[in-house]
Every structure is written in C-alpha cells, then in structure tokens.
C-alpha cells in the first residue's frame, strides 16, 4: 500500500515521515520516532498506557492512525519536563507521593493528568478519579496516584500540598 506523507509536531519538534495508512500512532511514535514513553499495554483502547496529548485532547494512541494525526501537535511524557530540565510538577508529584510502583502506566497517567489539570485547575478527589478513569494501574490501587495529582495541582497553584487525614 502506498505510503502517505505526514507532518506533525511532537514535543515541540516538527517531524515529517512517510507512513502506511494502517500504522497506528503508537507504533509510529515508538518504532519510527523512537519515542518509547507511551506504552503498549492492552492494545484494545482500555488501559490508557499509550495516552498522548493530541491538539489539547488526551487520546489513546493505539486507537488512532498516524495519518489521522497529520498536522497535529502532540505531547508525550518525553515532552513533560520544564525547559530548564527540571521535572514538571506532575512528575515531581509522582516521585514525592510514590505515585508509581512498576511504572508501566505512569507515562499515560501523567500525560492524562496534565490535560485534566489544564481543564480543571483544582479538581476534587472524585474529579481526579473520574478524570483518570481511562488509565489503569495494576500496582498502586490509585491512592498515591491521586495524591500525586493533588500534589501537582497544589504546586502549580504555588501552595504546599496538604495530605488529607486518612
């Protein structure tokens, strides 16, 4: 099948590549661009490990063809750190609050939580849980992931994170 020319911005850099129409965005990112932060978990649109930010939306890159993303602006976990190399508040939150154990779901979790905090600057615990309901974690039980996101929301507001009493 003839390849199509695609051009998109990935983590601020413009890339131009030839792809087969059937190439899924996750395979394009991982195999063609060597951006391996987005993970292949279930491959069936359930787990959210492949989540990337695409034109201001959190999407599962296993369920989008690369040709559909032609012209898009994409951000993955590789593009999350601040320009000076310091960690983004969410990355710091996941470290400080132990928001990961095996770490497989973390890139998708952080990229999804990034968009959630863009849309809702101070989400309640319930809103966080609902907001990350498309991302599965099999280690943590989500408790520390929620805290990590609360930590980041507080930090982005310039206030210290107060852990709720348990």
């Amino acid at each position: 099948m003839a390849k199509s020319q695609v051009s998109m911005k990935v983590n601020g850099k413009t890339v131009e590549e030839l792809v087969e129409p059937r190439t899924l965005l996750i395979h394009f990112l991982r195999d063609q661009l060597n951006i391996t932060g987005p993970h292949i978990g279930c491959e069936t649109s359930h787990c959210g490990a492949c989540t990337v930010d695409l034109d201001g939306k959190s999407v599962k890159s296993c369920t989008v063809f690369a040709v559909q993303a032609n012209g898009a602006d994409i951000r993955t976990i590789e593009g999350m750190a601040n320009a000076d190399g310091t960690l983004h508040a969410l990355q710091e939150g996941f470290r400080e609050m132990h928001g990961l154990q095996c770490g497989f779901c973390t890139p998708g979790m952080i990229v999804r939580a990034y968009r959630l905090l863009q849309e809702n600057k101070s989400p309640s615990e319930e809103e966080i849980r609902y907001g990350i309901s498309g991302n599965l974690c099999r280690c943590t039980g989500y408790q520390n992931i929620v805290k990590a996101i609360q930590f980041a929301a507080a930090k982005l507001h310039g206030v210290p994170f107060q852990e709720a009493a348990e």
Partner: protein
Amino acid sequence: MIPGAFAYHRPTSVKEAVGLLAQLGDDGRALAGGHSLIPMMKLRLASPAHLVDLAGIAELKGTRSDGNDIVIGAMTTQHDLAGSELLGAKVPILRETSLQISDPQVRYVGTLGGNVANGDPGNDMPAVMMCLGASYHVMGKGGERRIAARDFYQGAYFTALEGGDVLTAVRIPVPAAGHGYAYEKLKRKIGDYATAAAAVVLTMSGGKVLSCSIGLTNVAETPLWAEEAVKILVGSALDAATVKKAVAAAEAITAPAADARGPAHYRTKMAGVMLTRALARAKARARG
C-alpha cells in the same frame, strides 16, 4: 495488533465524501472518531480496503439552534456534547449520557454521529435519540433525507443507512422547559457497555405525567422505544403501582443476549431497575 492495509482518503466536503463512498461501494467505510471501527479493524473483524476520514469536513462540526430544534453536527465529540452550554441548558440528558460513555480519552475522540450510525446495540446515544424523538440527516447519492431515530435501527449493526450514505447531523426537538430527564446505566466498570440502561424524558403538570418518553439500551438487537410503558404512565402520578405496571411492559419488549454481563433474564430485570430509577430521578427534576 495491526489492521489490514487500506487506502486513506480525507475529503473536505460532504459531497466529496458521498461521491467517494458511492464509488467505492462495499470496499469503503466512513471513519468518524474511529473508536468502534479501529478496534474492529485491529481484530480483523473489519478490513475495509478504503477509509474515508470525515474529520476534515468542517460542515460536520458544531451545534446550532434551528427553530424549536437543535442540530448537532455528526463529528461533534462526546467531550464537546458534555461541555456545550447550549445543550446543557436545552437538552441536559445529552450531557448526562455523554459522561457515562466509556472514559475521558474515548470521549475526546468518539463522535455523536459515529455512536448513532454504528448500529451497535451497546451504544448509548441511539436509545436517547429514540427517547427524544430525534431524526438523522443523511446525505446520499440522491441528496439529503431525514430518518427518524425510531425508524433507523433494524438489527445489530443494521440500520437504514445505504451504501454511499453519510449521516451528517442529528436533529433534536428541544424538550419542553421544565422537563425532567435521566439516563440510568448499569455497567460493570468504566469503559464497559451497559448491562442495561434506560433514558427517560417527561413533563409533569399538577403532579401528573403530561408527556413521557422512554428509550432502552443494550437489551435487544436494537435500541428500544418503550411505547406501551409510556401509555401506562401518561396521566398517572408515577405512583408505585403504575410504575410497576409500566416497568413490566418495558421489560416485556426486551430480548437481551446472554453474555459476560449476565444471563438474559437478569439483564431484562436490570432494564426494569434502571427504568424505575430513571423515572424517579426524572420526576424529581421535573417542574410542574
């Protein structure tokens, strides 16, 4: 999982899309958000030789008022539906339903047009559209026609759409101000299709039901419009005995498949439970 090879087309007008689909015949499929079609293609349950992506067609986007109707472009996403102030004010059941569809990532991409045109009995919007008395704008070789949602669904994945047709918009008559509504969905977990779900829109006057409509999701090969149940409820005060009778009438038209969501009789009973809850919540929300 890698789908079969296909040629990709990205038309910029409905006319161009209809022309392409008509010419491609059975080899072509329209691609909306793709969150039903792409998983099917990955499993090789679908292997279209050509995909006609509707994402580049500006006229399929946006929501507008037209007289007493609201017209929603087919490529409007579930996320857009949930966030629309116009819809929140005029047809709030759409927001309530959208937020019960799958998960946030899917709602950013999944479209209203795809949801209603797919013909999967598990899709949530078709029963809501039957409940609201919506109609679909369909553009085909012979021009535009409108098909009532209540006449659209013929069987699992079989609809009134014909080869070359593109569903371009959904037209919803705005329910009366002060109406009550609810979409009650039982599902095993986030992202699952309904074990059973019920949509209710009603108006009350002097404590009695003035008008009512009921749609049921995923308890038959098609979404269901529960006409007999409605007849029982209109004029009543939604007292327990009448509700029970109406719920029995609604359960009687279900014919669910037994699957991982439970045996058929369980899913029928759950449709009844969802309807009972939806009626109570719609009544609590209705003025008059």
